C-alpha cells in the first residue's frame, strides 16, 4: 500500500478550441474512493475516459500498477492490453446501462461474459457465480435468464455493477452511476455501492455532479472546472471548508437535507 494504483500527470486534451483537460494530475491509491465533481463540460467525464484508456490525451502520462506490481503505461499500451485490463483488473460502470450491458443477452450471460473472457469454461460455475452476484447487488437470482430490457433503470445499474465486480477488479471507474434515476432509487444504489466498496476494498474513481453522492461514497473529492482541478482533498474538508470560489458555489447550491 505504499504506491498509488494509478498515477497521472500533465494531462492535456483539446477538442477544437475547447480545453477539455488543461494540465490535470491525479493519483488513486489502493482502496481509495475518489469523486470527481464539477458541472457539465468541466472535463470530468473526459478525465475518467483518459484515465481508463478509452481516449488518448494530447499530452501527459497515465501509469497503472498491475497485480504483479508491473507499471503499465496506459497511453502506450496496446489495445489488447487495455482491453485485457478492462476485463480483469478494471471495471467501468456507465451512466447509461445500454453502454455497459448487452441488452439482448440474459442477466446471467451479461455477468458471465466477464468470467468467460477471463477463461471461465464451466457453465454451472459461471451460472452459480452470476446468481450469487445478482444476490449481492440485491437482485432476484430467479430472474437470471431475463434480459436487461425487462429490468428497471435501477436494476440495470445493479446488473452493470455485478457484471463489473464479478471478476474482482481492483479499480472501478464509474461515470454518473446514479444519473437519470429516481431519487429514492439513487439513494438505494449509492448505499449498495458504499457497502460493496467497503467490503471489497475497491479503489473507485467516480464522476458525479451529485454532491450528496460524493459525501456518502468518497474518501477524497476532486473539483474540476474548465478542464482544471481547482480543489482537491479529504472529502469532508472539501465540502465543509471549501476554499475555491467554484467549490463554495457548488456546495452552496446543494439543498440542505
Amino acid at each position: 500500500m505504499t504506491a498509488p494504483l494509478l498515477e497521472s500527470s500533465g494531462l492535456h486534451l483539446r477538442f477544437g478550441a475547447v480545453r477539455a483537460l488543461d494540465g490535470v494530475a491525479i493519483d488513486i491509491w489502493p482502496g481509495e474512493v475518489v469523486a470527481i465533481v464539477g458541472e457539465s463540460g468541466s472535463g470530468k467525464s473526459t478525465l475518467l475516459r483518459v484515465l481508463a484508456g478509452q481516449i488518448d490525451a494530447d499530452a501527459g502520462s497515465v501509469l497503472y500498477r498491475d497485480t504483479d506490481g508491473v507499471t503499465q503505461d496506459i497511453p502506450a499500451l496496446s489495445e489488447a492490453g487495455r482491453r485485457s485490463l478492462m476485463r480483469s483488473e478494471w471495471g467501468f460502470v456507465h451512466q447509461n446501462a445500454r453502454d455497459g450491458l448487452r441488452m439482448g443477452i440474459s442477466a446471467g450471460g451479461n455477468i458471465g461474459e466477464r468470467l468467460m473472457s477471463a477463461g471461465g469454461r464451466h457453465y454451472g460455475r459461471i451460472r452459480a457465480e452470476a446468481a450469487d452476484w445478482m444476490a449481492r447487488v440485491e437482485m432476484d437470482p430467479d430472474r437470471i435468464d431475463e434480459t436487461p430490457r425487462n429490468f428497471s433503470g435501477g436494476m440495470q445499474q445493479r446488473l452493470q455493477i455485478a457484471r463489473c465486480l464479478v471478476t474482482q477488479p481492483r479499480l472501478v471507474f464509474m461515470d454518473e452511476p446514479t444519473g437519470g434515476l429516481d431519487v429514492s432509487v439513487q439513494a438505494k444504489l449509492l448505499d449498495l455501492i458504499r457497502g460493496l466498496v467497503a467490503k471489497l476494498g475497491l479503489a473507485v474513481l467516480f464522476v458525479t455532479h451529485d454532491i450528496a453522492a460524493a459525501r456518502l461514497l468518497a474518501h477524497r473529492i476532486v473539483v474540476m472546472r474548465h478542464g482544471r482541478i481547482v480543489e482537491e482533498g479529504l472529502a469532508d474538508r472539501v465540502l465543509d471548508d471549501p476554499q475555491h470560489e467554484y467549490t463554495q458555489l457548488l456546495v452552496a447550491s446543494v439543498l440542505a437535507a
Partner: protein
Amino acid sequence: MSAVLKVEELAKGFTLHLQGGLGFQVLRDEQLVVNAGECVALTGPSGAGKSTLMRCLQGNYGADSGRIMLAHRGGMVDLAAADARLVREIRRETLGYVSQFLRVIPRVSARDVVAEPLLARGMAPDEAEARATALLTRLNLPPRLHGLPPATFSGGEQQRVNLARGFAPDYPILLLDEPTASLDAANRDVVIGLIHEAKSRGAALVGIFHDIEVRDRVADRTHEILALEEAA
C-alpha cells in the same frame, strides 16, 4: 506526562467568495498542549471559535498556517500538513471524534454504525459486534433498536449511538463536541464514566461541554478561546 497533541501558532480564517470575497479570521496564533490521560475543556463565548478549533483538530477544516502535531504511529505528525490519505489513517488509528449530530447512513444498523470503526482497525467481526452491543447496552439503548438503522431514532438515541461509535475503539486522542447535549441524567453519568475510563487508559481528550456540571467532573483544565475582531 507526555504531550500527545500540540497546537502551535494555528490560524484559521474564512473567505466567502460568494459574499464578494468577505473574509474573517477566527483563530490566530492558537496554542494548545494536551497530555496523555488529560481532558481539556474548550471555553469561551459563543461564536469565538471553539467549534472551529475542534473541526481543525479533527481535520475537517484545513489550517491556514501553524501546526497540529499528533502522536501517531510512534512519532509526531502534523495533521495540518497531512494529505487526505494520512488524515484518514490518523482518524482510523489515533483520532476519535464524537460530533453533536450523527451523520445517518441509510440502511446501516446502529450496531454496525458502532462496529464500523472497529472493523476498520482490523477487529474480528464477532468481537466488534460484541463490543458494539456492550457499549450500546451500557448507554441504555434498548436492544430492539440495535439492529435498526438510526435514521428514525430520537435525538438522544442517535447521540448515544454516536457516543458508542466514538468510544468503541480506544483512540489515543478523542474529541468530544457537546457529548451530553441531548442526554438525560442517567446517560450523562454513563458518558462521564466513559470519559474517566478513557483518561485512565491514557487517552487525551479535548471537549466542548456546555453543561458546567459535566465539565467540572471530567475536565482537568480549561482552554479559553477568545473572539478575534472581525477582519474586513
